[in-house]
């Protein structure tokens, strides 16, 4: 079974992710120790909260260096969830400008309603639209709903890094990918069957 | 700390029970209200209703009586026969029927009635027993459905409008006022008070290979069908002062058989005799709410001045909430094996449904068990 490191950087509910990984057949290892990443087959960066706090906590724990080594140098498959997806961008404007990990080109911007009826945060079940089949989405139909809860989004600079979009506030990237690095805006661990399928796909890559 | 009724031994955790300013529970108050009831008038009402519904020419039954073979349903049948009625008896068969249960069913037939037994597909039934145990902590959930649904289905199919139930459990066990006054058991009553615990029959479709076609006997008739036949359910307990113990005496006098020893976890040998799964069902009540069958029985005796509260407390402490190692002598492992569960899985499910606030735990937050494997309540009486 894959050892899946789930990074604990002091910000959120890790239990749900750990249980979801367990149910999908992985061996979850919730850890705040940078050294644990060395032996992980997969790495998940979950997250709910503010970007600047998150980056600071990662830095302080020595996680940034460890992540770069495991993901960029060694090529371990990586999944960033919600805030975790944002952290792989270059920069965020949440609470002032903060640099991210810079793995996928793009910035984190606040969602802007395109219609007066669109409320921020974007909370609830919404669909992901994708055109090309993708290993993360195997067995998942186009326009399947996932659970979103966020006020910011990933504005990717390179269009082929965008795997799926969601039509809200215009349109935003709900899944991004570059090589072994994946980011999902929604919460697969809270998206019941669809989320479980996506996580299983991630574990089987 | 758990608060208990000042008169009986019900804890505040019991669903649908409320305590008044004097610390007396609604079940005790409901019983107290019986003094105000004009039973003679009620009995006249009963005669009037049954006469209204009886068959004019003997071509159909006068009423339908849901029966289980137990003391109460035996009593119900006897009462109807004494009133000159010709009832059709209907049983939604319990699973894991005990030998004594089978004999008591045959005894009802020998009273002189037509009888229909409906058995649900046991392989499906047992899957539902297990699912319900794991989902809502009630192994007997399909039994609750069967008890209410099968008789009504037959009433509709055979055009018998009057259905005579036994006690209105809301009345005896103290449910919301509206329910206590209710004479009639309809779909709304079933949903609200029938012990369905939030689970619906339609929830089962798609679980573990259960399909819609497996659930025909579980489907309550539609409102339209009920209206067409004019199905009206009444509670015998509304018209005659209900007492389970007296029912048992009456039933015994007519051939009803009791168990040779005390039923496990109970204070009686005259009820819950038909089904080996009842021990598990009652145990989960204890885990969730801190009281079991012994408490129910003790309270019935307390209210009727057959037992003092302080004496009842001692009996309850001896027998309530025991781990159901056996039920009517059958080991739990056998009962669990029938529904495809191991003892380990069972224990895990027990823990999930245990309300840890009610029981003593060690410093690590783990439940403490005594030498018999029983949990210990934090307080057995109001301190």
């Amino acid at each position: 079974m894959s050892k899946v490191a789930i990074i604990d950087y002091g910000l959120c509910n890790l239990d749900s992710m750990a249980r979801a990984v367990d149910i999908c057949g992985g061996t979850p290892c919730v850890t705040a120790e940078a050294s644990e990443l060395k032996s992980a087959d997969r790495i998940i960066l979950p997250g709910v909260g503010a970007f600047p706090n998150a980056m600071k906590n990662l830095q302080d724990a020595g996680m940034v260096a460890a992540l770069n080594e495991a993901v960029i140098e060694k090529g371990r498959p990586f999944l960033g969830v919600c805030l975790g997806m944002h952290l792989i961008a270059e920069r965020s404007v949440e609470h002032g400008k903060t640099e991210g990990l810079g793995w996928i080109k793009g910035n984190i911007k606040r969602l802007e309603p395109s219609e007066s009826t669109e409320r921020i945060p974007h909370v609830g079940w919404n669909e992901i639209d994708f055109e090309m089949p993708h290993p993360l989405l195997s067995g998942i139909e186009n326009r399947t709903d996932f659970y979103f809860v966020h006020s910011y989004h990933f504005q990717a600079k390179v269009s082929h890094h965008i795997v799926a979009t969601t039509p809200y506030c215009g349109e935003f990237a709900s899944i991004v990918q570059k090589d072994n690095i994946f980011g999902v805006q929604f919460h697969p661990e809270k998206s019941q069957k669809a989320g479980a399928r996506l996580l299983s796909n991630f574990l089987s890559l | 700390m758990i608060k208990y009724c000042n008169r009986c031994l019900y804890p505040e955790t019991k669903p649908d029970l409320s305590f008044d300013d004097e610390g007396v529970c609604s079940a005790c108050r409901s019983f107290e209200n019986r003094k105000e009831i004009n039973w003679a008038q009620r009995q006249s009402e009963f005669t009037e209703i049954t006469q209204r519904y009886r068959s004019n020419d003997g071509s159909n039954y006068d009423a339908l009586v849901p029966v289980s073979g137990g003391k109460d349903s035996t009593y119900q049948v006897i009462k109807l026969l004494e009133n000159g009625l010709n009832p059709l008896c209907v049983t939604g068969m319990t699973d894991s029927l005990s030998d004594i249960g089978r004999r008591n069913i045959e005894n009802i037939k020998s009273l002189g009635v037509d009888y229909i037994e409906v058995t649900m597909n046991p392989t499906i039934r047992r899957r539902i027993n297990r699912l319900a145990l794991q989902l809502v902590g009630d192994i007997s959930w399909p039994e609750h459905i069967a008890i209410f649904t099968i008789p009504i289905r037959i009433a509709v199919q055979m055009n018998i409008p009057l259905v005579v139930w036994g006690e209105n459990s809301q009345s005896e066990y103290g449910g919301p006022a509206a329910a206590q006054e209710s004479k009639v058991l309809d779909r709304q009553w079933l949903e609200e008070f029938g012990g369905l615990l939030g689970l619906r029959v339609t929830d089962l479709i798609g679980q573990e290979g259960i399909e819609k076609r497996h659930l025909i006997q579980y489907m309550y008739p539609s409102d339209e069908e009920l209206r067409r036949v004019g199905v009206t359910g009444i509670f015998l307990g509304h018209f005659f002062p209900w007492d389970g113990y007296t029912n048992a005496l009456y039933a015994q006098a007519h051939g009803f058989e009791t168990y040779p020893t005390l039923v496990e976890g109970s204070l009686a040998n005259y009820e819950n005799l038909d089904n080996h799964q009842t021990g598990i069902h009652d145990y989960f009540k204890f885990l969730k709410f801190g009281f079991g069958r012994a408490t129910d029985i003790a309270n019935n005796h307390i209210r009727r001045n057959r037992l003092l509260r302080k004496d009842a407390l001692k009996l309850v402490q001896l027998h309530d909430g025991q781990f159901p190692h056996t039920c009517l002598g059958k080991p739990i492992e056998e009962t669990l094996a029938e529904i495809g569960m191991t003892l380990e899985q069972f224990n895990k499910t027990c823990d999930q449904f245990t309300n840890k606030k009610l029981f003593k735990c060690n410093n690590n937050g783990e439940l403490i068990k005594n030498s018999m494997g029983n949990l210990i309540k934090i307080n057995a009486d109001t301190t």
Partner: protein
Amino acid sequence: MLGYCLIFYLFNKVLNYVLKTRIIPTLLYKDLGLVKGVGFDSWRRVGSAMQSIKVYNMREVDELVFLDITATQDSRQPDFHLIDDLADECFMPLAVGGGIKTIEDVRKLLMVGADKVVVNSQAVVTPDLISAIANQFGAQSIVVSIDARKTKSGDYEIYTHAGKTPTGLCPKDMSRCAQEAGAGEILITSIDNDGTMEGYDLTLIEEISRTVSIPVIASGGAGKKGDFSDALRCGASALAAASIFHFTEQTPLEIKHHLKDQRFPVRV
């Protein structure tokens, strides 16, 4: 009011809005088990929390709200062990409230499995708490819950401590302040309608929906399918309900089928 509702309703139809309306069962916990009341009174025991959580999880509901309604008045902290056990059975979003007073309470709740916290009484007592939570954990992690009763003059007044303490405050002002402080959502409950199953308070819902631009969850009074569509037409983003699911044969899915027939976007 009617005009606003109509405009909003038409907008919805034209946009082919894809964010799905959430139907959110609410579980109210008091001392030792689940309860349900009428007008925040006459609390009736309705059974064990675990079985409700499991049933809703099996039904894959959109979201769940779990509120410990006496924690604040008993000066108790949230029961973290209980939430931990319940969250283990939840594979959909779980919002937890009751007795939340400090950032540490929030952190612990999120750690044991809550996805969002619901702050009611303390939001009135310590308004800074809202912004503290939003700054630390993000706006999406905090729902500000407002319980309101109609006053004699026909306005609304906020009550805290499970409907016991009048505050003299107005729900509109409070919801605006909550949004400014960083709250992610407002949960607006009509105390008068709660448990009656006679319909939501549409005026209250419309007022709050018009006042804020964050999502509004309507609560209090749902008794039949039509109540849900009525509330949506007044601007609610999501609909919470309890009595209807405890005491009738309606399930969240049946409500959603009704809403789908009424052309509202739902997940079925």
